[in-house]
């Protein structure tokens, strides 16, 4: 009788899955991809793609093995190259990965943004063509949304795609394209209906960056780094099969993708705050001194405690949203707003608590932690601009959540 209890069967299936996962990881996760790896082995930030280079060959091996299993997107059905796992199995997988301190095998805009909307809006052929390559890290994607004249007012975008029979002819310019110089393909918003109202003339198009007429130019940021590019399209011919969804129905897909992006950015800010070794309390203790285990300066200490309280409350709110079943797109705006503003504030506090070391730029007189903090702090200034500014999020909340009238 007991054997017929579905819960017990379920439990034992999960236990079995856990056991198999453990064994697989034991055999397949290379030593340098786990916690306790030799610090002398160079660490790669793995984004995959046609031109990926690896300082450590085990980074590639780990990506290939996880990609083959479909475990870089474990909930995606197997027919599209995913892991085909249930939510419960993913939880087990994550616990086991966490347990051995496994490194994330692949960072990918394809995983975070494109694949979820392809699953929802793509044709069967498009899903089969693109999702497996995202999962295996074979193709690196970038996002072509903003344009020089279309920032917050994204729907005014002007890059046009004309119908020339078998193909679209694309002309225009994108900006803030993250890592466009390293990406293989771009998912772009293009204007296909110049006479339609602005939201109704936009299409969602996939473009191979190797096509003739596509070029990129990196933009140097205030942090001194160049994670973004300008991307130019000069008479680029794109096959019509690369259109996702209906012609002129791209805005709906674009908004959906932005939700995935916002959720990602806000979680990322928080995860960075909680998990990173760059902790405001230890930085304050290092630079301001410690007395009886306390940050020695009371003004900083109280400001830091206030900040930590907000961080704690924000973390609990993410948890509550999860417990409530993660409904409502408007909460994505709240998380994007709060997560990024909080991350900026956290970096301001770390810089202030570091004194002049917090604004170190280069040379041997400062240590790497200080110099990296300066760059990281400058980078956070973009957090509340990219993916929709804080002001845009406030607009979304006031109109969609609070129901306040338009002017």
């Amino acid at each position, binding site marked *: 009788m007991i054997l017929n209890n579905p819960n017990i069967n379920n439990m034992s299936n999960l236990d079995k899955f856990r056991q198999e996962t453990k064994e697989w990881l034991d055999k397949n996760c290379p030593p340098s991809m786990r916690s306790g790896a030799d610090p002398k082995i160079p660490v790669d930030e793995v984004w995959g793609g046609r031109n990926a280079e690896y300082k450590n060959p085990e980074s590639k091996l780990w990506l290939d093995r996880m990609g083959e299993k479909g475990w870089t997107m474990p909930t995606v059905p197997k027919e599209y190259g995913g892991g085909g796992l249930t939510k419960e199995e993913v939880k087990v997988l994550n616990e086991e990965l966490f347990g051995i301190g496994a490194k994330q095998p692949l960072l990918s805009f394809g995983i975070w943004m494109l694949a979820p909307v392809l699953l929802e809006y793509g044709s069967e052929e498009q899903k089969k063509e693109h999702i497996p390559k995202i999962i295996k890290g074979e193709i690196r994607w970038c996002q072509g949304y903003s344009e020089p004249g279309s920032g917050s007012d994204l729907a005014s975008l002007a890059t046009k795609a004309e119908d020339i029979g078998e193909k679209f002819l694309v002309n225009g310019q994108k900006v803030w394209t993250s890592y466009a110089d390293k990406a293989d393909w771009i998912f772009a918003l293009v204007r296909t209906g110049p006479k339609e109202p602005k939201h109704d003339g936009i299409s969602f198009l996939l473009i191979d960056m190797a096509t003739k007429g596509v070029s990129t130019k990196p933009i140097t940021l205030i942090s001194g780094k160049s994670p973004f590019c300008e991307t130019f399209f000069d008479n680029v011919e794109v096959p019509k099969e690369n259109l996702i969804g209906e012609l002129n129905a791209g805005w709906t897909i674009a908004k959906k993708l932005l939700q995935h992006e916002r959720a990602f950015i806000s979680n990322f800010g928080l995860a960075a705050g909680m998990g990173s070794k760059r902790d405001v*309390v230890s930085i*304050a203790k290092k630079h301001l001194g410690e007395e009886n*285990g*306390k*940050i020695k300066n009371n003004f900083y*200490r*109280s400001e*830091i*405690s*206030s900040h*930590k*309280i*907000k961080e*704690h*409350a*924000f973390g*609990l*709110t993410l*948890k*509550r949203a999860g*417990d*409530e079943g993660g409904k409502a797109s408007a*909460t994505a705006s*709240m998380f994007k*707003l*709060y997560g990024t503003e909080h991350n900026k504030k956290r970096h301001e506090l770390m810089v202030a608590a570091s004194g002049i070391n917090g604004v170190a730029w280069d040379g041997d007189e400062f240590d790497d932690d200080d110099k990296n903090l300066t760059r990281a702090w400058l980078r956070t200034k973009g957090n509340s601009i990219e993916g929709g500014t804080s*002001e845009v*999020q*406030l*607009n979304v*909340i*006031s*109109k969609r*959540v*609070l*129901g*306040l*009238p*338009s*002017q």
Partner: protein
Amino acid sequence: MKLVLSEEEQFLKDTAKNFADERSPISHFRSLRDNNDPKLWDKDIWSEMVKLGWPGILIPEEFGGSNFGVTGIGVILQECAKTLTPSPLFATGVLGAYAITQFGNDDQKSNYLPKIVSGEITTALAIDETSHHEPSKTEMTAKKNDSNFILNGKKIFVIDGASADILIVLARTSGVIGDSTGLSLFILNSDTSGIETKKLDMADSRNYANISFNEVIIDESSLLGDLETAGETVESILDIGRIAMSAEMLGNAESAFEITLDYLKQRKQFGALIGSFQALQHRAAEMFCEIELTKSSVMAAMRAADENSNELQRLSSLSKTMAGETLHLVSNEAIQMHGGIGVTDEYDIGFFLKRARVAEQIFGSAKYHTERYANLSGF
């Protein structure tokens, strides 16, 4: 720890909401204030709460309670706070019920708890002696004399102190002011000889008193909990009180925000609804976020109390800080967004501001708890 209400908890919340809307709308509070009601709460409203079983929510079933937990009473306080419902529920149903259930001996429990459940008695917790909450600053003394204790000193800002039948008092049995050791709790009738109660008029028009103890002789059976353990026990009672008060303050903030939003959608200036102005929209959206964060904090703290989590103290300070700061913000913005009408006595929104500032002080301000959070976290 799931941060969503169970079906039963949601039912309690809905019941409380209906009760507050129907039986004690804000006009009820206004009439108590205008009539200079000495208790500043209404006997009939309280008996209805008693009939609903609310004072017994933290009390075990063997004494007639429902043992339904801090989350249960928290959501009731939250809903009642939306209409500023005054009642002895916080001082009696939370502080008194919890203190006696947790730290009372068998006699004390069987003596007091059934009477709390039946509404026969109300209680008050007397802690503070200075303008800022700081239990270790207790100066009031309890001197042992044979089988008696003799109480001398003065307690201030005692919630419901002007009407409570039973007092729970923090006093020093040894040590000096500033020590968190040497403190004990006592439970006694408020009409014991030598006690003088003076009603305290605060901005929020609620029931408070300053209480003097002049050579008050009580039997040693009045000791609540073990001798000189109150440094800890009182913190545990206060933490439950802080969490419950945070739930109340969350209700205040939600209500003031809702009233203000309605106003933004009705009031016209320059030929447009003022809610269409971005200067106001963005501030409203920011308040929304702060309220959401406060909801999560209060919820987590209530859950921690019911699960007796080792995060309880930190979450208590977290929720009192979040509730304090959010209500502070919302009560100020509510007035400003109402414009001139917001500063008139005739309009209700001012009640929320006055209640906010008093509630912020109860059992420690946001500043107090930010410091406590830092200490507990090792900052």
